[in-house]
């Protein structure tokens, strides 16, 4: 009997349990225009990767709790001292000292603005978002970088004020747990499981 592959860390090592791949027979590829001569074979394969979040784990955990964390360089000797980074950077790109983790949920609620956007009708394999996908980049007051994310409801425009939306119910613990909605959007307008 098969079971989904699950991973835990125990004694500092990954412990893998369950099925991580399925076996499928390869199939011949033949040339329909040339007497069905053999050209090659298919090679089906289904694998599961493990991504460690390392020092970013707290960011992804916090999304499920409705918090948007960022980081800040507090090295007084660094010329970037005081810079706030969103995306969350574990280390300052200039002095490489470990940044301080800060909660910027309120800053996001009050100042998030769409810097640019794209409505995308297509996706690649293994996409989990509904199409069309409304990609947005968001700038925040006092933050030196511009976060890439997606607009959950509404139509994007450059300069539009937006607020963060969190996937409270059944979180994925990925960046997909964070999305955005135009400022003023009511809770009822959000899909089930999402909240401000």
């Amino acid at each position, binding site marked *: 009997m098969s079971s989904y592959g699950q991973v835990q860390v125990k004694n500092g090592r990954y412990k893998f349990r369950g099925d991580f791949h399925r076996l499928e027979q390869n199939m011949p590829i033949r040339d329909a225009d040339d007497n069905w001569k053999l*050209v090659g074979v298919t090679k089906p394969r289904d694998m599961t990767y493990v991504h460690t979040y390392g020092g*970013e784990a707290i960011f992804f955990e916090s999304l499920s709790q409705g918090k948007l964390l960022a980081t800040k360089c507090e090295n007084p000797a660094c010329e970037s001292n005081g810079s706030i980074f969103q995306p969350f950077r574990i280390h300052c790109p200039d002095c490489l000292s470990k940044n301080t983790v800060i909660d910027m949920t309120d800053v996001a609620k009050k100042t998030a603005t769409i810097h640019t956007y794209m409505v995308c009708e*297509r996706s*690649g394999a293994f996409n989990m978002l509904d199409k069309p*996908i409304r990609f947005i980049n968001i700038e925040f007051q006092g933050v030196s970088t511009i976060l890439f994310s997606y607009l959950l409801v509404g139509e994007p425009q450059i300069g539009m004020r937006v607020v963060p939306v969190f996937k409270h119910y059944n979180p994925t613990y990925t960046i997909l747990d964070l999305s955005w909605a135009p400022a003023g959007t009511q809770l009822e307008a959000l899909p089930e499981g999402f909240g401000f």
Partner: protein
Amino acid sequence: MIKFSERQLKTPKFMRPVYLVTAGQSKYARAIPEKRTEELCVDALTMAAEMLNLTPTELKRYIHTCYYGHFADHFGDQLLGEAVIHDRLGLDPLGNIGVKSGGATGGSTLWEAAKAVASGYSDCVLAMGWERMDEVPTDEGNFLIASAADRDWESPMGQIYTGYYAVMAQKYWQVFGKAEASFRRTLAEISVKHHDYARFNPFAHGGMKITTDDVLVSPMVADPLRALDCCLMSVGAACAILCDEPTAMELTRNSKNKPLRIWVTAGSHTLRPADRRDMEIPLLPHEAADQYKDLAKEFPGGDRYPGFTGFLAARMAAYYAYHMAGITDPMEDLDVIELHDAFTISDVQTYEDIGLRPYGQGRDFVESGDCYHKNPLTGRPGRLPSNLSGGLIGCMHAVGASGIMQVFEIATHLWGRWAEIHSDEKRWKEFGREKPEDWTDLQVKGAKRALSISHAGVGSHVTATILMDPDHLLKKDA
């Protein structure tokens, strides 16, 4: 704010001159099920030997080290593909190494190869690039390409790289293009030009005679980019042979190829555009210190540099290359160029990054007619023809090979061999392509200096390659 130290801005210097002596390429196509990748690489190296009137065996006797550009191992389901190619080319036990930098892989491969010669490690090196993107379904191909974005912060969003790039295109479109219909038509003209030039290139697989209206009604990919604004996905291989001066003279003594001086430089910027911090615009030799003081007034929203509208990596590659080779104004000093036209809009962005036009004015390079082989406004030769191969939109984008294909193309102009190579009836027939009745000679007459730009994704890596006829250098100690 990013600041550079003087040491970081040092003009790069080769320890001795490096020469391009020959290059070769395979056929390019969306799919080539009848050939393995190594067969395509053999085709490219064989052509490079033929350009020197040598057999592959004779040419191989000169090669000392090999640099292999192949971006997507996971597309080919083969790690250490370099070892496969190296063996099939019969080049063991020479040292070889793989080079990977996304769409800039071809240019980066040349960068490494040039340094090997410049340092004295090798007198003759092979730079070979290839890619095959035909062996997975399209949606899985999009997934694999999206793996070049940040795996935890970007790729989960749609698994579609085009979308990650398109947010940048949208910003440029609205800020510098002002979302004008006339600018949209200018973008379409680039597509028409590149598909049209590709018709005269037997290696190309995107040749088409189309109109701007055809581009404007082609399927929408990511507003404002439509299908005909986008580069091809391709299979194929290209190679180049780089040498020191004595070896270059020896290898070319029975050939029409004159050894060409080559310089390659590189720049980079963050994998995630999200991480790009504001900074002052680094200036190229022909730009003035106060040139951009009113940029944000003229283009509201254009106050951030590079923001989502410029490619800092391209600007830095050009900065190093121009200083290294003595270029003071690319429009004056260069005769022909090949740019990384992944999308029509990125072509325009690159005009600005490499200083063909100031930031905000890129569209003028097209609208003036300067970028054409024959300026449609004047009927005279274009001032700086670009992408006469058809570029990535019309010729091919077999990622690891693209940057080397570009160098092959500009070299044929400097060798005065463009017509000979692109008109060859035997080659058209061998590739199963019909030579158009209106085939046109696109040789840039008297070309002495050329540039190509190889560019990765959203601008994480960019290389600039400059070729010059050694009798027309701009700087004695270059």
